[in-house]
């Protein structure tokens, strides 16, 4: 006969296992290989070496200047201040146009969220203008605003408005009903409800929109400046590239192109990635 009272209760605290089973040193190159920036650096160095080798083999600095010539032109441009001046001009116009675009996008989103007709207005406008590359509007912009900052701001704003207003609306639409009820439960209404519930809850979408808008604006600006870039004697980075191509300073053209890339990367990594790390990543919400 089996024992009816056969329950076994073990005292696990007495036999708590060691968490670490085994341990061994990791080789230094393995540790470096595990670092993302280290691998990225390796890729960059490899590309630079390839570039240098191909350019030297081609030996035609008019068609394809070497990496070292490009770096020299870049350093020279920074030293004389010409390149710095061009970059600052471009960034100034860019920030202004970007801000104007964001402002209009916010206004448009507010109209869209106020009524069904407003929503249809926004949807129709966005469907019409979103596929239209901003640069295609440059000829009419020049006609309306002349050769100057006005035209640039116009095309920049156009490149930002549609995608950002879409992000605002999809972000606000996506705020969960539960969160909305929580906000109202604690007595929030009007501006404080938008500020304390809707905007933070829609933030992942807003950030995506800001990022996308910035990328569009940056590309649009350089392209527009290639067409015309001088207003009151100071041109932008696009103009710098165009000007140097005309003067057959091809190394400087490459230096200008490198600056466009570097600025794009700096804004992406030092501004948007940083904001992302401090907000959506920390909050664990998907972008």
């Amino acid at each position, binding site marked *: 006969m089996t024992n009816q009272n056969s329950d076994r209760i073990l005292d696990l605290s007495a036999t708590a296992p060691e968490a670490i089973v085994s341990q061994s040193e990791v080789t230094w190159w393995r540790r470096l290989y595990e670092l993302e920036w280290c691998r990225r650096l390796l890729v960059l160095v490899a590309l630079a070496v390839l570039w240098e080798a191909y350019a030297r083999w081609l030996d035609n600095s008019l068609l394809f200047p070497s990496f070292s010539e490009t770096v020299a032109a870049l350093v020279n441009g920074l030293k004389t201040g010409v390149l710095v001046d061009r970059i600052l001009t471009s960034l100034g116009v860019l920030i202004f146009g970007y801000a104007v675009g964001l402002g209009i996008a916010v206004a448009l989103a507010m109209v869209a969220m106020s009524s069904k007709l407003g929503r249809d207005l926004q949807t129709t406008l966005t469907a019409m203008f979103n596929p239209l590359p901003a640069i295609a509007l440059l000829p009419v912009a020049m006609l309306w605003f002349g050769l100057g900052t006005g035209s640039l701001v116009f095309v920049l704003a156009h490149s930002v408005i549609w995608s950002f207003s879409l992000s605002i609306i999809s972000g606000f639409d996506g705020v969960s009903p*539960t969160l909305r009820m*929580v*906000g109202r439960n*604690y007595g*929030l209404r009007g501006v404080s409800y938008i500020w*304390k519930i809707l905007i933070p809850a829609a933030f992942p979408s807003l950030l995506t929109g800001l990022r996308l808008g910035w990328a569009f604006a940056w590309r649009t600006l350089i392209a527009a400046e290639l067409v015309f870039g001088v207003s009151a004697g100071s041109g932008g980075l696009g103009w710098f590239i165009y000007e140097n191509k005309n003067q057959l300073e091809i190394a400087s053209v490459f230096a200008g192109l490198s600056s466009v890339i570097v600025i794009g990367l700096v804004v992406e990594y030092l501004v948007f990635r940083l904001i992302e790390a401090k907000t959506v990543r920390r909050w*664990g919400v998907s972008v």
Partner: protein
Amino acid sequence: MELPLLQLNDVSLDYEDTSGNKRRRTTVVQGVSFGVSAAERCMLLGASGSGKSTLLKAIGGYIKPSHGSITLSGQPVLKPGPDRVMMFQEFDQLLPWRTVVGNVVFALEASGKAKGKDANDRARTAVAKVKLERVADQYPHQLSGGMKQRVALARALAMEPKILLMDEPFAALDALTRTQMQHELLELWDNHRFTLIFVTHSIKEALTVGSRVLVLSPHPGRLQADISCAPSKEELIHGLLFGNAATEAKAHD
């Protein structure tokens, strides 16, 4: 006899939807009347379609009754307010951009109950009550489901509402965590004697947590039974032998 804290008089709730060219009104809850006194643990039990969640939202002030009235301490309920804090089943009731303490501070500050350091102190006390001091400065996404619901509970209790409205708060938790949460809720009730209206579709949960069970029948929701749950023999004897901290504290007041 004392006046009940919350009174529902012949409450009917409609749901309106427009499909095609017809506007249709469906009655979700019909002619429900009951009163809830202070410190009751009132359970709304019913199958899906019995309108129990809708009824809770009406008490919360999110839905206007199409007929009848809801009054809280004699005042008609017209809109949501911090004197009736709701706790939901969904984990996304926590603000993901605020830490555990931050979520409680948010509630206190948004409703104007407390500000700055005072709000922070009260929030930490509330977080300690639900045994979450260890994760007080973490963000909701770092917590388990049970912990998230405890944060929501802490946030609700910190508000010291007249009534705590819980909409199937433990339904999304696993069975073990659910049982544990039910007992912790009862423990908190023992110490704080809040008034509770709790929606559930589990008979077992209704009998474990409630001091009174209101059974709703579906389509449309009507009050079918009002059953008071006497404390179990074990609870009675436990109370006699070891006393009850809360009742003693009340006596000292």
